[in-house]
């Protein structure tokens, strides 16, 4: 009985802590202004992003060499996005529109944070290329 109870409570707290942790990582990205080039690549028109753009952004991030340790952050976003997508399907199936709207907005935040990571990688690689060209 005790292990079952500990498992159930731990699972709930794990979900809450993980969601809050990833949101703290995403919140860091919200202040960042995307460059025009990254906006064009991502197909963004405003400061908001759609959740369905996330998989494509992840592919673009993988094409771009890593910027000193942001791989951890990108993996956390990807895991959070997968959890949200699962929850989105469940709530749509249960026909709870309010929750589905919130989850869709969260997925959009994930996509924007991924675009910021891509923007930073592009800027980093440009700097490296400029340094190499100057030598």
């Amino acid at each position: 009985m005790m292990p079952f109870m500990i498992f159930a409570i731990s699972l709930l707290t794990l979900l809450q802590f993980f969601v809050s942790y990833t949101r703290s990582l995403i919140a860091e990205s919200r202040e960042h202004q995307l460059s025009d080039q990254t906006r064009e690549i991502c197909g963004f028109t405003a400061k908001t992003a759609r959740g369905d753009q996330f998989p494509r952004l992840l592919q673009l991030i993988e094409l771009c060499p890593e910027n000193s340790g942001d791989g951890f952050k990108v993996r956390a976003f990807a895991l959070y996005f997968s959890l949200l997508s699962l929850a989105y399907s469940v709530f749509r199936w249960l026909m709870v529109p309010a929750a589905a709207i919130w989850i869709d907005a969260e997925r959009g935040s994930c996509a924007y944070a991924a675009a910021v990571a891509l923007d930073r990688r592009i800027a980093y690689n440009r700097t490296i290329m400029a340094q190499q060209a100057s030598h």
Partner: protein
Amino acid sequence: MLDPVSYAIWLAVLLAEVVSLVCMIRGKALAEHFTLVLYLCCCFAADVGARSIIKSSGYESDTYRYFFFYSKSLLIICLYFVLMNLYSHVFSEMGAGKYIRAGAAMILGGTAGISYYMVAASSDRLVTHFAVELGQNLYFVGVILTYLLWFAMAKLRENRTRVVQLVLSMGVYVSLSAGSYAVNNLYPDHNGFWKYYFPITSMWLPVSWAYTFLKVPAGTRLATAKVLAPNA
């Protein structure tokens, strides 16, 4: 002997701990977060000790099993010190240092007393899952303490990004560990799975701490509402 996968995981864990230590030192967090450094040093010592025991007694030996679970129990006590350090950071402006120290002493004393009682009452079944039960209970106390801290931070509107991320990453780790120990307690026979699972999960804290000290500058602030409220 360790198989190649376990060996690679063991090396990755050691590397993560060393990188995390370097990031803390580079981030000038040694004095401010001394208990985190202490915890990482203890993890490093436990990992090196485990390797030498595997070499001398073998992976399947009781010696290694006891070393693994009891060193984990000691590491959880170290984790309590980390938690107390985070409590003191959160409550620093309220001048509650002496209450936190008293609370920490009480929790430590209580944990030691309960653990002693459990050992005394279970001496006949030490070979069974006692060590797993102890770990599960200690981690669960950690979950409760971290949750209380996070609740207090939300109420006090704590906005230091580093502190927020350190507490949340701690919450993820203790919840994951308590849940895993509970499942291991229920299904102890899947040794092949647990032998990879526990070392992989132990990488979470060093990696997340390294990220925090490498990427988040000391003075950065983050509104707690952005973490708590939906789409704030």
